[in-house]
C-alpha cells in the first residue's frame, strides 16, 4: 500500500498549550485527535521523547479483540472495536484492519471452563463470541496441530470473528496526520523531565526542549508512566516489564486467522506482507531496557512448534521488545490523579494496541470535561484503595 505524500509538519514547540500530552504513542495520538475532533480543543501538543509512535506502538503484534471477561472491560474494548470498524474511512488511511478472527486456545480443563465462561459473558454483553471444540478449531485453522497426542492437546477455543489485526504504523500515522491537520503540534525528540506544580495544580512541564506551560497535562507514556508520575509525586501500582515479539521471513499465505494460547504462552498471526508475527508472555523481571531475554524467545518457539509443526524451518529474522506497564489486576488506569490538571492513561500492559481508538476517545472526553468518561470510571486510580479491581488476568494470561 502506498502511504500518503504528506503526513505531518515538524513544528517547534510553542511556549504554552491548553493541553500537553506526554507520549506520542498510539494512545497519545488518538487522544490528541479526539480532543480536536470531538471537543474542538486544538491548542494541543504531543511531546514525544523519541520518534513518533516508536515505543510499544511500533513494537506490538497488533491483535485487536474485545472478548474480555468483565463488563467494565468488555464495554471499553468493544467501544474501541466499534471505532476500529470505521477508522480507515474516518482517517482516510488504509489501516489494514483485518477482521480475520482470533482463536484463544484451551489446553486444559480450567482453560475450557474459562473460555466458555468468557464466551458466555461476551455474548451477554453483545460481543460476538463462539466456543469451538477441537474439531471445529481444526476446521477454522487447518494447519494447527489438534492431535490429542501432543504435549498439551487443543481441547477447544473461543473464537471472536470480528477480532483481527491492523498495521500499527498506519494507525499511528493516520491519527498523527489527522491530528496535525487539525492543528495539533507533534513535537518529537522532546522528553518531559519534570512538572511544575503550583498549589496542587500542574502548570507546566519541563522538557529537553525547555519549559512548556500547560493548562492540562495528560500522561500517555505507557511503559514509562510510573517514572513520570513519580516526578509529580504520584506513586503508581504499575510494574514495567519487557515484552518480546518477533517476525519471520516472508511466506506465501499460510495462516489466515490469529491464534493465541495462554497455556503455552505463544500467539501467531501472518501479517499482510507475509511474515509470521509471534509473541510470548512478558519477561518476568522488571526493566526499562527495551530488550528481553533470549531464553523467553527460545521457549516460545518450542511452544509455537507444538501448535504449528509446519513452521519448523521457517526462519526468524528479527526479535525485539517493548516495555509494558502492568497493573495488579491487568487492567488500565484512566482518569484524574491527586494532582489537579494532571491526568493519567496507563496500565494497558500487554494489550493496549487494540484499545487505541477507545482509549483515546474516553481519555479526550475525560480531559475535555475534567471528569472520568463513564467508560473510564471503573478504571480509576482509587480502585486500588477501594479494592474494586477488574481482574483480567484470565483474559490477559497471554494478553494481547
Amino acid at each position: 500500500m502506498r502511504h500518503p505524500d504528506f503526513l505531518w509538519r515538524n513544528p517547534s514547540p510553542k511556549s504554552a498549550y491548553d493541553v500537553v500530552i506526554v507520549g506520542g504513542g498510539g494512545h497519545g495520538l488518538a487522544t490528541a485527535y479526539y480532543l480536536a475532533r470531538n471537543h474542538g480543543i486544538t491548542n494541543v501538543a504531543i511531546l514525544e521523547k523519541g520518534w513518533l509512535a516508536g515505543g510499544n506502538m511500533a513494537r506490538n503484534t497488533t491483535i485487536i479483540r474485545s472478548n474480555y471477561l468483565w463488563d467494565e472491560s468488555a464495554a471499553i474494548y468493544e467501544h474501541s472495536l466499534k471505532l476500529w470498524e470505521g477508522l480507515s474511512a474516518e482517517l482516510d488511511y488504509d489501516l489494514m484492519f483485518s477482521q480475520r478472527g482470533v482463536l484463544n486456545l484451551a489446553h486444559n480443563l480450567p482453560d475450557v471452563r474459562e473460555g466458555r465462561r468468557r464466551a458466555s459473558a461476551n455474548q451477554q454483553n453483545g460481543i460476538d463470541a463462539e466456543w469451538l471444540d477441537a474439531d471445529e478449531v481444526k476446521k477454522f485453522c487447518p494447519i494447527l496441530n489438534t492431535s490429542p497426542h501432543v504435549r498439551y492437546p487443543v481441547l477447544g477455543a473461543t473464537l471472536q470473528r470480528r477480532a483481527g489485526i491492523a498495521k500499527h504504523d498506519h494507525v499511528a500515522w493516520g491519527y498523527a496526520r489527522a491530528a496535525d491537520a487539525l492543528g495539533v503540534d507533534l513535537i518529537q525528540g522532546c522528553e518531559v523531565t519534570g512538572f511544575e506544580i503550583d498549589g496542587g495544580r500542574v502548570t507546566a512541564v519541563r522538557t529537553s526542549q525547555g519549559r512548556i506551560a500547560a493548562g492540562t497535562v495528560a500522561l500517555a507514556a505507557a511503559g514509562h508512566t510510573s517514572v513520570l508520575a513519580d516526578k509529580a509525586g504520584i506513586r503508581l501500582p504499575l510494574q514495567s516489564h519487557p515484552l518480546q515479539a518477533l517476525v519471520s521471513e516472508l511466506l506465501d499465505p499460510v495462516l489466515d486467522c490469529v491464534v493465541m494460547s495462554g497455556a503455552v504462552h505463544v500467539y501467531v498471526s501472518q501479517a499482510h506482507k507475509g511474515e509470521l508475527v509471534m509473541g510470548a508472555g512478558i519477561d518476568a523481571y522488571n526493566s526499562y531496557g527495551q530488550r528481553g531475554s533470549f531464553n523467553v524467545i527460545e521457549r516460545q518457539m518450542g511452544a509455537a512448534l507444538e501448535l504449528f509443526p509446519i513452521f519448523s524451518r521457517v526462519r526468524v529474522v528479527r526479535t525485539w521488545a517493548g516495555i509494558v506497564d502492568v497493573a495488579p489486576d491487568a487492567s488500565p488506569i484512566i482518569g484524574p490523579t491527586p494532582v489537579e490538571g494532571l491526568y493519567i492513561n496507563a496500565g494497558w500492559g500487554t494489550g493496549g494496541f487494540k484499545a487505541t481508538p477507545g482509549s483515546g476517545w474516553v481519555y479526550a472526553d475525560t480531559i475535555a470535561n475534567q471528569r472520568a468518561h463513564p467508560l473510564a470510571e471503573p478504571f480509576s486510580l482509587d480502585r486500588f484503595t477501594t479494592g474494586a479491581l477488574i481482574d483480567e488476568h484470565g483474559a490477559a494470561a497471554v494478553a494481547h
Partner: protein
Amino acid sequence: MTQRLPIGGRVDRTRTLRFTFDGVAMTGYQGDTLASALLANEVRIVGRSVDLGRPRGVFGIGSEEPNALVRVGDDPMLTATTVELYDGLAASGLAGKGRLDPGFADDARYDKAYLHCDVLVVGGGPAGLAAALAASESGARVILLDEQPELGGSLLGARERLDGRPAMDWVAAAEARLSGVQVFTRTTAVGYYDHNYVVAVERRTDHLADRPAHISRQRLWHFRAGRVILATGAHERSIAFPGNDRPGVMLASAARAYVNRYAVRPGTRAVVFTCADSAFAAGDDLRAAGVEIATIVDARRGETVTRTVAGPDGALAGVEIGGRIVECDLLAVCGGWNPTVHLFSQSQGRLRYDQNIHAFVPHLSAQAEQSVGACRGTYGTAACIEEGYAAGGSAGNFRIPVSDARHEQPPAALWTSGAQEEAFVDLQRDVTVADVARSIGAGMRSVEHVKRYTTAGTGADQGKTSGPGTVGVMSALLGADPGAVGTTTYRPPYVPISIALLAGRERGILSDPIRVTSMHASHVARGAVFEDVGQWKRPWYFPLDGESMDDAVLRECAAARTAVAAMDASTLGKIDIRGADVGVFLDRIYTNMYSTLAVGACRYGVMCTADGMVFDDGVTTRLAEERYLMTTTTGNAAAVLDWLEEWHQTEWPELDVSFVSVTDHWATVAVVGPRSRELVTSLGVPGDMPFMTYREVGLGGVAARVYRISFSGELAWELNVPWAYGRTLWETVLERGAVPYGTETMHVLRAEKGFPIVGQETDGTVTPQDLGMSWAVSKRKPDYVGKRSHARPDAMRADRKRLIGLFSAERLAEGAQLVTAAGMVGHVTSSYHSAALDRPFALALSRDAHGPMEAVWDTRRVPVEIVSSVFYDPENLVRDGSPSTWPVSHEGDWLLDRPVSALDAYRDRFAVAGADAVVRAREIPLAIMRETHGADPGEDAMRLGPEWWIGPAGDVDVSGQRTIVELTGPRARDVLITGCALDLDPRVFGVGAYVQTMLGRAQVILRRVDDDAYHVYVRSSFAGYLAEWLLDALAEWSHT
C-alpha cells in the same frame, strides 16, 4: 560449466557434485556454494523480487546476500550464497517469499549447547585469527567462531600475498599454532546479549549429502565469555542508481571472491564502478581470470554510472556512463564498506560516523568487548592482524606479516547516482531512492520512520547491504550528516534462524516436562485417561472396557459413597516446615489459626494474596511441636513454596522457620468410602484414628504417615509412603477391594459437599468470605496476609458474588453465565451429574438475585434453582463411618517389599543407549538423603544454599524426593553441555564439585564424582522426563 576457470580457487575439481536448479540438472564442485555453482553454470537470474517481480541474480557472497533467495529441499527460504553445495541438492528460485507445505513434518534433530570461555573471538579472518592466537598464548580458554566452512575470512576470496606467499598460507600457519582454542566453523554468532552472552548457530550437517540422523542438524550455542573480541569484518555496500538491481550487478568484492575462491567468472565483460580503492583489486583479479574489464569508473574522478540497460531476459547488458552506453554483462559495484557492527550494536555499544571512511564504526563499548579489524573500520590485512594480536593480549610475541596489497586512498561518499526511480537502496524489499524521498516529503526525519514507510532494511537480510545506504540517501536528501541521521537499531538474530533451532530438543514429549507419580505405570496399565494438571499427568478417570466417561465417573463415585475407592493424591504439594516460629509464621500466612493446633492434629486452611483474594488452600498438620506439614493444591505447589520463602526472606527474616519440599518424597493414596476402615486396618492403620488427625504408622514394614482427612465427606484416609513404595501400596489397596478413581470423581465428590476448588470456584477475585468460609478467617489474629484488604470497601460490599448451589433439569456447562431479568449475576463454576443424588447439580458464584434465573451458554438457556451449596450429608454424619464395624488392625501380615524406582522403566533403554567407550547412563540405587536448614550436618553433605544442606545425615528425610542418574564416559560432559548452562569445564567444575542447576527443563543437582563420571539428582516426578531427555542427548553417541 562454462564459466569455471580451469585452475585455481578453493574448489575440489576431483569431486563433482550433481544438483538441480528449477528442475534443471547441473554440476558443481566440492567447495562450491549454490551461488558459485549457479554462476559457473551461467545462471544469471535466480529469482524475482518480492513486490515488483524484477529479475534478480547473485549480488553478494555470503549472508549479506539480498537477492538470490532459494528454496532448498525442505528449507523454504535460504540464500544461495550461504548454501554449501552437496551431491543431490535440489533448489529452486523464489520471488521473495517462501512457501510452506501443509503436511510437512520435520524429522531432523536440533539441539543446543552451552560453553564458557575467557575469550570469545567472533570471526576467523586475519584480525580474529590473530586475536585468537594471541589470546591462546596466554593460556586463556579461547573460542573462535566463523561462519565459513574454513578460517580465513576475506582472505579466502583474495589473491593477496603475505610475506611473499599466498595469504592462506599465513592462515594455515596461524591455525596450526592455535593451541587449546576451540574452533567452530560453519558457526554464525546471531545474538549478543547482556553479560557477554553470545548465541551462535552451528550448521553441523547441512553441507552433507547424507545427513546422519543421530547428529543434530543445527546446534544453537550459548557462549558466556569473560571478554568478547569481535572480528566480524565489513560488508561492501552498493550505490543507488537506476537498474542497479539487475542480474549481473554485483558487489565488487563478491565478483572478486567468485573468481579467486570458487574459480568462477561471474561475467565475461565487466565494468567496475567504485568510490573506493578496494574495487581496483577486484578489477585486477577479474582481469587475471580472463574477464574483460571494459572500464573502471571511479566516482572520485567525477565519473559515475547513471543507469544500466537490460538484455531481453532483464539481466544486465550494459551501463550508461556520461551519456554513453558501455556493453557489459557484469557490473562490479563498490560504494565503500560498512563495518559489520551488528553484534557490537546488539551488545549496546554506541556507534559514531567516521568521516574518513564514510561509515558507522564502533565508538563506546558497553560490555567487556573489543572490535578489531575491518569491523572497526581498519583497512588492510597487516593492520587488521596487528590489531588482532594486540586485542588477544600478547602482541609482543608475534611478527606482523608484510602484505603486497596496494596502499588505499580514502574512499569518497557516494550514495546515489542518476535518477531516483528504480534506483534501489534495498534490493530485497524493492525500495528505491524515490521511495525514501517520498517518505521525507511526507515529513519523516527519523531513519526508523523511513524504514517503516519504505520497508527498507526489514528483509530477511536484515538490510546488511541496504541499511547504511538508506541512511546515506536520507542524509543526501536532507542535507544532513549521516551521523546525525543515525542508524536503525540492530536486532538479533544477525542471520535468520529457524524456529526448530530455537526450540531445540523442546519438541513433542520434551516440549515441556511431564511429571508423573510413582503409581503412574499402574495407571497406564489400567487404561486410565489422563488430565494435564500443570506439568502433571493425573488420572482423570479409569474407564472399564467400553465404558463412557460419564459411566465411569458414576461408577467411581458410587464406589466411594457406598463401598471403598482409592485415588492417587501424590501430586498435592507437600512442604515440611520447621522452626521455633512455625506457628507464628503460619498464623500470618493462613487466614485461620495454626499456632494453637495440637500436635498430631490436621486443619484445613486458606491463604490469600495481599489483596485478600484466595490464593491456595489445603490441610496442614502439626507433626511435632516445631514442625508442620503443609499441603497445597497440585498446580500451586511451587508457587506456594516461593510465596512462603518470599514472605520469610523479605518481610519476616527474624522468624525461625525453614521449608523443605517433600512433594516427590511421599506417594499418597487416598482410601475413601464407608468400607475404607476395613481396608486400611487390614494394612495396619489404627482404625480408631479420629477425624483430622495424623499418625506415623508402620505399613507393610515401611514407615508411613496416615492422615484421617476427607475431601469427599466420606470416611477417608490418606496413606503416605516414600516414593519407592507408592506403586506397591496402590496395587495392594486396589487388590483389597478399592475401586480406583480419578480427578473427575474427586471433583464430583467434593462438589457434592460444597467444597470449592482453588482455580475453579476462585479466579483471583474471590475472598474466603465469598466462598462462605468466614469461619476460616480468624477475627482474633493481629494480622495475616490479606487482612487489610478484607476491610476494604469493595470486600465489604453486600452484593458480592457468593458460592451457591444450583439444581437444574439438565447438566449445565461449566462457565455458563447466570442471568436474571437484571442481567448477568454470576456464572457456573462446577457442574456434574451426581450418582448420590441421581441428578445434575452445580456450584456457582453469584450475586443475590431475585426472580427466575437461567444458565446461558452457546444457544442454550436452562432454568436453574438456587439451593444450598452443600448437597450431600450436610450434617457430616458419614465422615466417621459406622463405629460398629471397626475391625482391629492387622499390622504385620503383609510387606511393602518391592521398592520401585522412578526410572524402573528406563533400565533397559539406558542399557542400549550410549556407547560403552564414550558415554553411558545408568540409575544409581536408592540412597538415604536428608535435607537440613541450619548448621552443616556433616557426612559429606552438599550445600545447596545459605544454611541449606542435603546429605546422608540431617533433618528431613527426602530420600524419595530425588532419583539419581549416573553419566559416565569421556563424552559425558559433551552430553551435559547440551542442557546445562553452567560452566562444566574440568578446570572450573572439578571432581567433587556439585551445583543446583537445570538440565534440559528439569531442576537437578549435578555432581562430578570422578574425572568422567557425574551424578544427576532429579526430582522423582521429573525422572522420566530427564531420562527421555538424556536418551535423546545420548543418541549422538550411541551410533556405532
